[in-house]
């Protein structure tokens, strides 16, 4: 049981790593990567909590939610990348610096 706890805590670590990069990094592609890492961390935490069942078989409801989440994350990533490319062709920028827009 404790080895599942290790993986759930890894999920918590991933959420924080992604959140840090989402705030600090200025390149938009890096922010998209950070969002994906955050969502992976959330899925890991959720699936870790689903594995607390006494019988050993993980709870199927969080599993289905994580599956749904993975597909939605892919759709969101595709849309974000299309927005990034559109922004690049409209303004020539791929980063969100404070001083780039002046």
């Amino acid at each position: 049981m404790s080895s599942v706890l290790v993986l759930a805590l890894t999920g918590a670590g991933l959420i924080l790593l992604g959140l840090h990069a989402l705030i600090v990094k200025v390149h938009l592609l890096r922010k998209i990567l950070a969002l994906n890492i955050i969502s992976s961390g959330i899925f890991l935490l959720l699936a870790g909590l689903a594995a607390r069942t006494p019988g050993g078989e993980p709870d199927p409801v969080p599993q289905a939610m994580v599956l749904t989440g993975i597909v939605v994350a892919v759709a969101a990533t595709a849309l974000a990348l299309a927005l990034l490319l559109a922004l690049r062709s409209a303004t020539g920028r791929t980063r969100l610096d404070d001083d780039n827009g002046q």
Partner: protein
Amino acid sequence: MAWLTGLPLAVDLVLGTTLLWLAWRALSSPDLFQAVALFIAFGVILGLVWARLDTIDIALAEIALGAGVTGALLLAALSQLQPAEVDARAAPSATGANEHQAGQPGQTAETADADEAQHKPAVFRALLAAVMGLLLLAALFGLGLVTWQLWEPSSGLTQQVNTHLPESGVEHPVTAVLLNFRGYDTLLEIAVLLLALIGVWSLATASNLGDTTPEPVLAALSRLLAPLMILVAAYLVWVGAHAPGGAFQAGSVLGAAGVLLRLSGWRLPAGAAGWPLRLVLALGVAVFAFIGIAVIGLGEPLLGYPTAWAKHAILVIELAATLSIGAILASLFIGGRP
């Protein structure tokens, strides 16, 4: 053999540390291409972690979608970003918007990640970083504490799902939750996929459509692989009724087949890119919503299939959803309205 009891924990520690390290490197390595490659490796290791947690359904979806399709999408976007950024450096101030970027010689958009907000005073930046670091550490501590305190055996909803499993029409609990007990989630999820594609299509038009023939080696290889992937997808839909598998895993494999065909040089024939493509894209949502609403006429609630028909209803929905998900994922990769 007492030392063997610690082995699973050791494996999980190694997997967890590897995940954290890969995530850190993907987010901090100066080269964007390296970052994307590390992110794909992260997805594959995460797939192993899902298998360790006995969640085979998620492992299948993670490796096909999280590592496969997301990786392909990121690499495709990167390849479109890269040449123009080299241009911006080579030909300074080609456009007004590029001036700032071009004004710093040798600084491409990738390598500039390290120096955020250079113009603020150093003290202010240090203070900001310290405050943010403290906040993030507090959040990590809170999340860890909550996880720790929640950590007592709890069966969650397993009991309820197992009690109602015979009425669901399938024998695999995850498929039962996805397509019967929580049908709303899945219907809306396919709708979200379609919405994302509409968003992508409204932003760009696809280039390089029309009939072309790929190189002989790639053509032969893709002729071998594509039918095999279609076979795997069909197997995954069918097996989803009583074992890990189902519409999303099968749709991911179909989508990956589309990405592979596109990469090896095949193009959608111009005749199929019009209404036939749009029909396949919308089929999943249309069939799912039609069946979900039609059962109201039989005196059932919305999306509540009668037990006698549930198996057939779920199979029809899954087949339509698989086709649509595969087509939508492949179209997302092509990345524009044909």
